[in-house]
């Protein structure tokens, strides 16, 4: 008889060869989990190679989901259940499985050849090396083959391909997930190929039924819907989708044509793909010939009065630097989205890192300040790019948004805003020629912003360029004091950008402040929760504005005896804070291509509290 145990939170990892469809299985499991009302966070982790040699460690692709009966902040540290579709997937993931965790393996993939490819000398299923886990050996391939037998038009290849759906069905049973969400997806996805649809559905049902009937797995887990979730209508989004929606919303609310120009680069290409599908909503996308052109095309569109956006990752940022500098000189709105990945150089294109902060701050020649924002969570990408658009337009400036690979690919439930609740964005174009007839493109309003006069406006013809401009007229000027004036004006404009103060979540009497930025948000919160459960006091503060920094930042830092800065790099924000505020900020960072884990951050904090 199968028992059902209640769990507050669970972490499941699907791991297999990159051809095994693990991202797909994980994605569908996410949908089913969202439908059930659990809070969730996901972490896809896949190799750079599209098809690394099958069965090798290099080809392992994994998808982790953390779901709970309460609000959660991260995709979790160590899985409680691991699905391993082959020996390589087992080998590269088993170290992280919680002792006592459930290990589901596709035993038929444990052939001599596959064991060799994964570097196993002996079959780990046959010795006692996995005794710490609840090992479930399941012949997924033959069970799938049997399930699809007799479906007309289905070959053995189709059966092989459907084994991820078998695994998904089994895990759905294990965690009591609804099956209709997955089945509806299968029906829609393979609408045009009835045989494939039936094979996938049969495999999924077989997996679910296998759990139900065999009693090989004697415990099922139930995770109740989350109850501490703010009321509202939700959907699941990853950072890429949220970014696309945020840009479209900014375009609609400002009335500006959205124009994204990008050059293919992992992991930012997904945004190009996503926005390219929205021509029916008036979105223009241009796949540029290179990163430089992508920035230039976006900036050219901005000169014409569009919401110009370019998206890339680290190596592309290097190439765009010159154009971003031009945008700073032209003082035109431009949004530059950097989906950070591990560097230097090509680095690790499919692994996350937060290591472009100093480049965003300083990576241009001359004095070329610009605002920098970083989203906290996948869903927050929506609000961050929306705010970036508002700042770019209001202050006539390029804005860098530092997202990262983790945020782009990770999913979470997102409370859908009402468009009417979004703050208005007014392009405030210059439309009328001044009375004396001379239009001055480099005069400034109280925000320090210059007029945005777009081609086609009679009487406002003007010329702008990268050469230093005379204050007011914008004419070329090599005058020494004018250059000092203009340099100060550009700096003052960025320094004066209106942003919200830094909020601190502090226990009364907390002596240590944990500070971070961007995607560190989740892990900081999760670590603080653990500290509090352990009865200790802690404070956290998260920076979404990296330039300018919130006006109260120095005051916040000085309120604590110790400050530790948590970021996925070797201490970039810590250095900025130390330099700016002369506070002895300590750094905790990790550059292993993955987000930080809550347990690690907890340990760092506890060590400092000892």
């Amino acid at each position, binding site marked *: 008889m199968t028992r059902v145990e209640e769990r507050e939170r669970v972490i499941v990892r699907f791991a297999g060869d990159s051809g095994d469809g693990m991202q797909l299985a994980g994605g569908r499991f996410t*949908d089913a989990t*969202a*439908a059930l*009302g659990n809070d969730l966070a996901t972490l896809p982790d896949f190799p750079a190679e599209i098809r690394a040699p099958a069965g090798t460690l290099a080809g392992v692709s994994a998808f982790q989901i953390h779901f709970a009966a309460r609000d959660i902040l991260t995709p979790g540290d160590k899985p409680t259940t691991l699905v391993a579709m082959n020996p390589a997937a087992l080998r590269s993931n088993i170290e992280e499985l919680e002792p006592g965790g459930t290990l589901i393996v596709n035993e038929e993939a444990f052939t001599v050849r596959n064991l060799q490819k994964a570097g196993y000398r002996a079959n780990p299923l046959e010795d006692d090396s996995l005794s710490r886990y609840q090992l479930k050996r399941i012949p997924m391939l033959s069970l799938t083959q049997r399930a699809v037998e007799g479906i007309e038009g289905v070959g053995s290849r189709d059966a092989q391909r459907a084994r991820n759906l078998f695994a998904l069905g089994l895990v759905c049973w294990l965690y009591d997930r609804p099956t209709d*969400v997955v089945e509806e997806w299968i029906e829609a996805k393979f609408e045009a190929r009835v045989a494939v649809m039936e094979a996938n559905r049969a495999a999924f049902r077989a997996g679910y039924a296998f759990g139900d009937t065999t009693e090989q797995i004697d415990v099922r887990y139930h995770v109740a819907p989350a109850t501490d979730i703010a*009321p*509202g*209508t*939700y*959907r*699941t989004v990853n950072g890429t989708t949220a970014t696309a*929606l945020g840009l*479209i919303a900014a375009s*609609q609310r400002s009335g500006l*044509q959205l*124009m994204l*120009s990008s050059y293919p680069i992992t992991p930012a290409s997904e945004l190009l793909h996503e926005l390219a599908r929205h*021509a*029916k*909503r*008036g979105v*223009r996308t*241009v796949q*540029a*010939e290179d990163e*430089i*052109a992508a*920035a*230039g*095309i*976006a*900036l*050219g*569109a*901005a*000169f*014409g*009065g*569009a919401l110009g956006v370019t998206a890339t990752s680290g190596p592309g940022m290097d190439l765009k630097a*010159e*154009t971003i500098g*031009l945008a700073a000189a*032209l003082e035109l709105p431009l949004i530059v989205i950097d989906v950070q990945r591990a560097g230097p150089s090509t680095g690790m294109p499919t692994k996350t890192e937060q290591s472009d902060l100093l480049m965003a701050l300083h990576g241009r020649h001359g004095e070329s300040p610009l605002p920098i924002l970083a989203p906290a969570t996948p869903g927050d990408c929506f609000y961050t790019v929306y705010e970036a658009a508002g700042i770019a337009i209001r202050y006539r400036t390029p804005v860098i948004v530092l997202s990262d690979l983790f945020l782009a690919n990770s999913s979470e439930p997102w409370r*859908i805003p*009402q*468009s*009417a609740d979004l703050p208005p964005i007014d392009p405030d174009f210059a439309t009328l020629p001044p009375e004396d007839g001379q239009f001055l493109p480099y005069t400034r309003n109280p925000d320090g912003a210059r007029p945005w006069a777009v*081609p*086609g*406006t*009679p*009487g*406002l*013809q*003007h*010329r*702008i*360029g*990268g050469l230093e401009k005379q204050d007011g007229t914008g004419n*070329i000027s090599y005058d020494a004091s004018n250059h000092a004036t203009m340099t100060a004006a550009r700096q003052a404009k960025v320094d004066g950008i209106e942003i919200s103060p830094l909020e601190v979540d502090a226990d009364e009497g907390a002596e240590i402040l944990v500070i971070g930025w961007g995607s560190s948000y989740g892990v900081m919160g999760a670590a603080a929760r653990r500290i509090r459960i352990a009865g200790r006091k802690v404070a956290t503060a998260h920076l979404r504005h990296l330039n300018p920094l919130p006006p109260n930042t120095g005051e916040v830092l000085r309120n604590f005896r110790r400050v530790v800065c948590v970021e996925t790099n070797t201490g970039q924000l810590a250095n900025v804070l130390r330099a700016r505020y002369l506070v002895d900020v300590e750094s905790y960072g990790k550059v292993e291509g993955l987000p930080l884990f809550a347990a690690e951050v907890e340990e760092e904090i506890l060590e400092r509290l000892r």
Partner: protein
Amino acid sequence: MNLQVNGGVLAPELTKADFQSAQETRWCPGCGDYAVLAAVQGFLPELGIPPEQMVFISGIGCAGRFTYYMDTYGVHGIHGRAPALATGLAATRRDLSIWVITGDGDALSIGAGHLVHALRRNVPIKILLFNNRIYGLTKGQASPTSETGKVTKSSPDGTREEPLNAVSLALGAEATFVARTIDRDKKHLPAVLRAAAEHPGAALVEILQNCPVFNDGAFEPYTDRTSAAETLVHLEHGEPVRFGAESTRGIARDPAGSLAVVDRTEDLLVHDAHRADPSLAFALSRLGQQPGEPLPIGIFRSVDHPVFASNHEALAENRSGFGEPELDALLHGGDTWTVGA
């Protein structure tokens, strides 16, 4: 004569002064750029497009300053990137007449990639490439069009590389309009510019331009009245390709299929700028590189092809139909669920 260019509105009675900005021109005395500026400002009123509908975008180099002297909208951008800026503008604004001003270093060296792609995309922009075969603004280094063996500050023993041929490159990049003209030819230059302006897609016009300081006389054989009849061949669509003081020489296809200079007036190549296959235009572009061959000027190619981002109207309509309710519907796309209060 008024022309419709890129949907431009006909404006009454424009004059040269409408296109002259108040900025003092600061090229070296005798620079060929003055002649080009005068020709452009002189012929633009004919187009009937008001100055506010025009945008001049330039890169870096002496020619880059051109933008500041036009009383139109303008961007003096960064080295080589003017075609990219212009592409972005053209992608979102179909109502403008967009001109790119560039040079041999700007377009064929640091910005060669952008030039090639603006041409193959057929972006509706007019690219004026001022070719003086030298870097002028940086004071006299060899450029990608400098002839092999040229002695400059950066090549004291003479350059060793082959020069690039702008017309050949453009044709290879699938350009739909390619022409060559000369700064000092006060009739030919505006005529070519007018044809470029009328072309719906991307137009590349190479303008041979004299740099009196660093490369004076580079095009002397083509501008000197006594020699020009033998050194230049004018391409006229539908006409036999002939040249010489008495028009007794011409260009013909030789038995091997390539083009040759012949001393006859019959059985010459008849120039067809509208020919879909660019290979004859390419063969013409190769002339003038060997001693005794005349250099062709005029329009090598002018063909109609789909223009980049030509779905402006549909896109604008889509955008105007995308209001708050549609945005809310988009935000609520996919599977949603509601958590009660």
